[in-house]
């Protein structure tokens, strides 16, 4: 339950819950609904993210490695001159030495273009004046045309200051030649996209992860564009250059806007999503202002909007800080996320943007400064678990591993293909071997170490289920059921299910287990098992189904037990009412105190037999007869009536014979004993007899009783009520009653079938 309240604070689970309910209850065909839910599974979304990463990697590498290559690194020398900072030993220009001053380049047989220090500028944003920017781009065009020629002539000064020429054939740029700041930007883009995409794949229906992935896409756009042009050897085609520069700016703007949107919705939703549409509008306006050159300086056009966004981010974080003052968990999440983004983006703006805005030089290479953004995404990934950022459980790391493994395999394959110039098949094989034998087992070992799996022994499970099923009230059973599921699966979320399945089912790539209702316990959905560290497996599904069966059996026995209790209660109340109640009522209307006493005694006898029957509902006939015989002797003691009750063979003989072996059920013996009591009572009260003879006989199918006295005999009307009672009782057990004529007194003969009628 605690996880639910935590859930409510972070992200927007309320929205996602209603969406879930809608998608389930909406009258869409089952197939479509399944397809829709399929599309939302984290692993599938993660694959799309990985595909986007691959596109970014391939596009960037193709752009960088496709450029003509001289194998030189140029640097700025004194007096605006360009010199050679490094020479690639195996490169096309291996003959040159370091420190050589370069005058210019020419295509073979064409005029030379002199090199300027500004040609080496890694980032054209740094150029403030638009006219200067145009000139820079024009020179890039001229230089890139020269470089594209089959042979390039390099004009330089030798050690003695003499002008020399060297004709070079540009080659292909090797991967290892790419500078470190390229890789920083490259991995910042890929890392940002992968991490933000992963968060989005887990919670694609919540707004904050959506903003987060927008920031990741913007980041990869900005970082990779910058990586391509700032790592150029000398020049790029100006059209490509302009596009990349625009993409870099748009990416930076998009990142800022996404961060603002994020902090307007997370941890607390401050603004309705529809108002956030103004953010892309603002980005578009800034982008247009830059393209249309509405500002005097490019520095202002590019760094004023990003700096403004930075200020807005910090403001939004401040408002969130106020909004989360009563919510410690949300505050902790904000602190972490706000700190990483503010510090990461803030450092970049302070180091690169601020000096440019005030007319100075950046304090650091832009390529390296991009590393701050990678820190943001790594920080978020680290904070996910601790602060439950975006309400994401630890289990989702498995999705990241999954996406990471696929991406790593492809990258490794590409790297091996490139570096070793191997044929595709063996390279793929090596990558597979690496991932399969090193990475995956390593990951699985780590995984197993972090998860302490608790198993419940079967007897324990059985006892727990019985405890659930035999809870006193529905509320108690529900509580125990939840506790048992918590113990078995430790899910982060445990919620009632609107439309439960017939059998336990796995959903959402194993993040959810749907349980059917059981007895008066409703259907449940369990999300993110084992504290969110693991997915539901088929084993867990099997356990859940076994649990369901156990619950069914236990519920069945409980309801049988309850039916038995209710049945017993009905019997007691019916007998109390029919027997004791009727008798006491009769006693109430008797005038004679002696009669009343007798009736009260009979009522006590009735109570005795009703209470006595509680012990068991089936008794041996011999026991019933033994008690009746004893009771009859007791009743006649002191009345002056002698009882003659000869013992049937079955009463004295060996155990297991005759009546000993016959079992009779409650309604039979109750009515039989009551009838016999009534007959004896009548004899005591009305007959004026001195002798009573009882003869019982039980053969297999029929119990016959013959009671005769030597009293006055039946007189018309006498005991009419009692007689009717007697007939009713005997009729109730399908017996017959007769009053055969005798010379003196009365004889009653009853016959009761001992076998139930064939139904």
């Amino acid at each position, binding site marked *: 339950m605690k996880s639910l309240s935590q859930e409510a604070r972070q992200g927007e689970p309320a929205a996602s819950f209603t969406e879930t309910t809608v998608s389930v209850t909406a009258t869409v065909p089952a197939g479509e609904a399944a397809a829709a839910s399929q599309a939302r599974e984290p692993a599938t979304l993660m694959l799309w993210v990985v595909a986007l990463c691959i596109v970014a990697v391939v596009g960037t590498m193709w752009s960088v490695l496709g450029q003509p290559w001289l194998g030189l690194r140029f640097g700025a020398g004194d007096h605006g001159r360009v010199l050679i900072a490094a020479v690639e030993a195996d490169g096309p220009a291996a003959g040159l030495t370091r420190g050589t001053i370069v005058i210019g380049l020419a295509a073979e047989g064409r005029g030379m273009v002199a090199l300027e220090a500004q040609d080496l500028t890694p980032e054209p944003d740094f150029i403030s004046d638009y006219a200067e920017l145009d000139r820079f781009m024009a020179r890039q065009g001229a230089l890139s045309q020269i470089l594209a020629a089959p042979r390039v002539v390099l004009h330089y000064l030798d050690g003695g200051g003499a002008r020399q020429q060297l004709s070079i054939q540009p080659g292909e740029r090797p991967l290892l030649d790419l500078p470190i700041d390229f890789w920083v930007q490259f991995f910042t883009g890929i890392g940002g996209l992968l991490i933000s995409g992963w968060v989005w794949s887990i919670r694609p229906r919540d707004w904050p992860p959506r903003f987060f992935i927008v920031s990741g896409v913007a980041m990869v756009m900005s970082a990779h564009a910058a990586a391509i042009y700032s790592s150029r050897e000398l020049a790029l085609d100006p059209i490509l250059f302009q596009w990349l520069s625009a993409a870099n700016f748009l990416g930076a703007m998009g990142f800022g806007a996404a961060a603002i949107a994020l902090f307007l919705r997370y941890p607390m939703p401050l603004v309705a999503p529809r108002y956030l549409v103004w953010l892309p509008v603002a980005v578009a306006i800034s982008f247009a202002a830059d393209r249309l050159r509405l500002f005097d300086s490019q520095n202002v056009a590019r760094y004023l909007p990003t700096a403004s966004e930075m200020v807005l981010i910090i403001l939004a974080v401040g408002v969130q800080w106020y909004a989360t003052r009563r919510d410690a968990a949300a505050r902790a999440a904000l602190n972490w996320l706000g700190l990483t983004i503010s510090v990461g983006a803030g450092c970049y703006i302070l180091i690169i943007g601020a000096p440019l805005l005030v007319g100075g030089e950046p304090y650091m290479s832009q390529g390296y400064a991009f590393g701050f953004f990678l820190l943001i995404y790594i920080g978020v990934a680290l904070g996910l678990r601790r602060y439950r950022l975006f309400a994401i459980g630890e289990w989702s790391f498995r999705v990241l591993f999954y996406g990471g493994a696929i991406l790593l395999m492809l990258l490794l394959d590409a790297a091996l293909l490139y570096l070793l110039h191997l044929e595709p098949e063996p390279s793929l094989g090596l990558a597979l071997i690496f991932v399969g034998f090193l990475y995956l087992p390593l990951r699985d070992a780590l995984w197993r170490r972090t998860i302490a799996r608790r198993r419940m022994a079967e007897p324990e499970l059985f006892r727990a289920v019985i405890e659930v099923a035999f809870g006193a009230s529905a509320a108690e059973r529900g509580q125990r059921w939840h506790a048992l599921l918590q113990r078995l699966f430790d899910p982060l979320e445990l919620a009632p299910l609107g439309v439960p399945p017939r059998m336990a089912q796995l959903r959402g790539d194993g993040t959810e287990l749907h349980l059917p209702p059981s007895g008066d316990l409703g259907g449940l959905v369990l999300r993110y098992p084992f504290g969110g560290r693991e997915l539901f497996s088929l084993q867990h599904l099997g356990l859940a189904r076994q649990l369901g069966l156990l619950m069914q059996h236990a519920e069945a026995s409980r309801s049988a037990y309850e039916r038995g209790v209710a049945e017993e209660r009905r019997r007691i109340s019916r007998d109390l009412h029919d027997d004791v109640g009727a008798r006491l009522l009769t006693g109430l209307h008797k005038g004679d105190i002696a009669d009343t*006493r007798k009736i*009260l*005694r009979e009522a*006590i*006898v009735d*109570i*005795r037999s009703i*209470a*006595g029957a509680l*012990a068991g509902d089936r008794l041996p006939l*011999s*026991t019933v*007869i*033994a*008690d*009746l*015989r*004893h009771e009859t*002797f*007791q009743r006649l*003691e*002191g009345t002056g009536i002698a009882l003659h009750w000869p*013992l049937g063979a079955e*009463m*004295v003989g060996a155990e297991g014979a005759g009546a000993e072996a016959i079992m009779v059920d409650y309604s039979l013996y109750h009515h039989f004993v009551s009838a016999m009591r009534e007959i004896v009572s009548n004899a005591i009260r009305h007959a004026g007899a001195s002798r009573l003879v009882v003869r019982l006989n039980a053969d297999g199918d029929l119990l016959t009783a013959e009671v005769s006295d030597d009293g006055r005999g039946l007189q018309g009307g006498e005991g009419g009520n009692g007689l009717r009672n007697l007939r009713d009782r005997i009729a109730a057990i399908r017996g017959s009653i007769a009053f055969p004529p005798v010379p003196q007194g009365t004889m009653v003969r009853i016959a009761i079938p001992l076998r139930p009628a064939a139904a």
Partner: protein
Amino acid sequence: MNPRPELCFIVEDLAPARASLMAAAEAAFPGIEVRAFEDLAGARAFVAAGLGPQQPALGLIDLGLPDGSGVDLIRLLAAGYPGTMAVVTTIFDDDGHLFEALGAGAQGYLLKDVDLDRLALYLRRIEAGEPPLSPSIARRMLGHFRAAPSAPAGPLPVDGTPEASLTRRETDVLQLIGRGLRVGEAADVLGLTEHTVAGYVKTIYRKLHVSSRAEAALEAARRGLV
């Protein structure tokens, strides 16, 4: 056999029943001193203060009392007052109500729902060493001795095995009474005198008490209480 009781005390919470029990005791033993109490506390005070251990007395004790169960008082009397004959007074003679009291040392029971003459008659029979025994109690006793035939075997030195288990004859008597035979009829079937059978019944009562006590001691030892 016990000497004729000179004192009878009655523990019964219902006033009319108390009165009729007092009348029955006086009718059964003319000249006897009768004391009556309505709860356990009063009876306990009397037993502690005014009853000698060897004094021949008769206690008629109800089970359901406002401040506890009469079984406790019966246990007390059986343990420390051999001169007193404890008799349970009850409405029902079914095993569920009586068995515990008989195990605790009651030497008979009296059905309260009978009239005065029969109350006095039953009392005299009990006093004469012919306690009543209903078929259901007889069956329950058989079950008890069958289930715990070797209760004394074990770490506890109980005073001789025969004290707590039944002889063949006693078992026969219980079986016959359990099947609804009266004492006289059982005597006929077994070829004994009625007096002998009545003596067996009395012995069975005593053995039930001994066996119950041994069982309780065994149970206590098992639970580490002694």
